């Protein structure tokens, strides 16, 4: 499998179980596979409860109370079951991460400059050198007058500026992979567009690989080279971004795209009936079968494996694409 050989990050057969108060467990992630090549920008798309965030957090081992099985390999190193020392070496150095809410990621009592410098200080860099690197990174992220702003505190910054600070913290250690979990969701529309542009520019100029987690299919087109769609804890489709929009293979992907209001047409929105199954009551067959207009007996009885699709990606559907359209 050439993809896996070249990949910077490879996730294979990932399952994540959460403990419940009664001692049993519930399977949040039930078979996720994805790969990110060096310099590639991959969007991981899913709705709430799809398991996209918990998958991203598992890469860095951020939720020790969860049981992770399967494989997460970064640059040849296995991260599932890795000891704290290995994970600590990867965090912040090889892999940077930003989250949705910048304010909760920042210490209100520490200057912005010291916070950005923190990852470098933690590996023993001298304060002056770390601060210089922090200032460079902040400038790279389009913050005018970075030197002066380094002495500010988070509350003096707007939401968009705070997200730049958090990005700077993630990028100051020059990671090879950036994991961004809904980094623009809490921002106003115009600021969101600016941050997305910034992220795209920085990734391109640094040759940085990005795993971008989002529920918003609208922002995918601006950033991603490739899209991975998750549904109910499983990967249901992976596709180059053009095919994701133009030739979506999985019925869920099609439904997702048809449900988004757009500026370029007035068609009535397609509303998928019902809601995703809860993790504790995921059906035996395809998790999407109950909401799928095409579902047949085999869909309810057997779980569809992720297999190559006609469009150069992969799809987990018994029927797609042969039966449900694009017969030409």
């Amino acid at each position, binding site marked *: 499998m050439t993809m896996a050989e070249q990949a910077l990050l490879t996730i294979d057969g990932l399952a994540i179980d959460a403990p419940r108060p009664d001692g049993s467990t519930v399977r949040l992630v039930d078979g996720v596979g994805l790969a990110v090549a060096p310099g590639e920008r991959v969007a991981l798309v899913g*709705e*709430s409860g799809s398991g996209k965030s918990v998958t991203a957090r598992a890469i860095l081992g951020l939720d020790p109370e969860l049981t992770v099985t399967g494989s997460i390999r970064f640059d040849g190193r296995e991260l599932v079951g890795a000891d704290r020392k290995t994970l600590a070496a990867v965090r912040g150095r090889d892999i940077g991460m930003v989250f949705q809410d910048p304010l909760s990621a920042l210490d209100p009592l520490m200057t912005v400059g010291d916070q950005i410098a923190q990852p470098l200080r933690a590996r023993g860099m001298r304060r002056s050198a770390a601060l210089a690197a922090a200032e460079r990174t902040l400038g790279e992220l389009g913050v005018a007058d970075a030197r002066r702003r380094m002495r500010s505190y988070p509350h003096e910054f707007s939401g968009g500026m705070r997200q730049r600070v958090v990005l700077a913290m993630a990028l100051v250690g020059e990671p090879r992979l950036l994991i961004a979990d809904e980094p623009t969701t809490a921002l*106003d*529309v*115009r600021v*969101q*567009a600016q941050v*997305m542009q910034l992220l795209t520019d920085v990734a391109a100029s640094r040759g940085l690989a990005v795993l971008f987690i989002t*529920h*918003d*299919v*609208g*922002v995918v*087109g*601006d950033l991603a080279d490739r899209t991975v769609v998750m549904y109910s804890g499983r990967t249901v489709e992976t596709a180059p971004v*053009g095919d994701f*929009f*133009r*030739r*979506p293979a999985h*019925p*869920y992907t*099609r*439904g*997702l*795209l*048809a*449900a*988004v*209001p*757009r*500026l*370029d*047409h*007035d068609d*009535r*929105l*397609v*509303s*998928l*009936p*019902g*809601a995703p199954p809860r993790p504790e009551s995921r059906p035996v067959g395809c998790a999407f079968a109950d909401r799928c*207009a095409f579902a047949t007996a085999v869909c309810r009885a057997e779980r569809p494996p992720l297999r190559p699709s006609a469009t150069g990606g992969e799809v987990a559907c018994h029927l797609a694409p042969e039966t*449900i*359209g*694009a*017969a*030409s």
Partner: protein
Amino acid sequence: MIEVTGLTKHFRTRGASSVAALDGVDLRVPDGAAVGLVGESGSGKSTLLRCLMRLEQADSGSITVDGADVARLRGRALAGYRRDVQTVFQDPMASLNPRMTVRQLVEEGMIVHRRRMSAQRRLARVDELLERVGLDPAHRDRRPASFSGGQRQRIAIARALAVEPRVLVCDEPVAALDVSIQAQVLNLLADMNRNDGLALLFVAHDLAVVRYLCDEISVLRQGRIVERATRDALFTSPQADYTRELIAAVPDQAELRPAADYTLTPTETLEV
């Protein structure tokens, strides 16, 4: 019809200064219309809605309903206004009492507004409303926690409709919902406006969502309406720089429509 004229509201800040949350806002919601209000955080949209709901008193300007000053309504006239203007909020989990059943939530307004109605009639009406918003009446004895976000928002809409309002004020009603579920709510609101003549005042930050529902759109920025236009005019020839910035910030999807063969057919059977 609701008419907001020159509405101004200042909030005191530290010291003697004050900030204008609303600065001379005019807005009309004619009977049966679908009016959109777009604004980012800090635009004053929440203050405007709070004034409309009489949770906040404006410093100057007026809100009238059919010519009567809302600020001066008392007694029966005020109760009538509160019945006529119902609100659906962003987060249905926060706005629905988790200890009440769906039936109790939906019939509460009917009881409060003393509709002369037997318990039996009321129950029949609850079932009718649940069906209207696409929920199974058999689920009337469940509580909000056992529904998805989209279903909860439909419970909130059924609750608002129970008192037969003339205007539904929607404050970011789909912002907290997942994409595949927000379409259920948007289509329901569109149908109620177009088929049942329910007027909508729809407040949201998402331009595409507002465009989907509204005939006329006002853009609110820092307490002022910077542009008001029909839906088509706003998107084809925006006048204010700020409106142009907002439209430019919408991710470009023009070339990203699924090819005809790849759309989700048969769509008709998928409608809720």
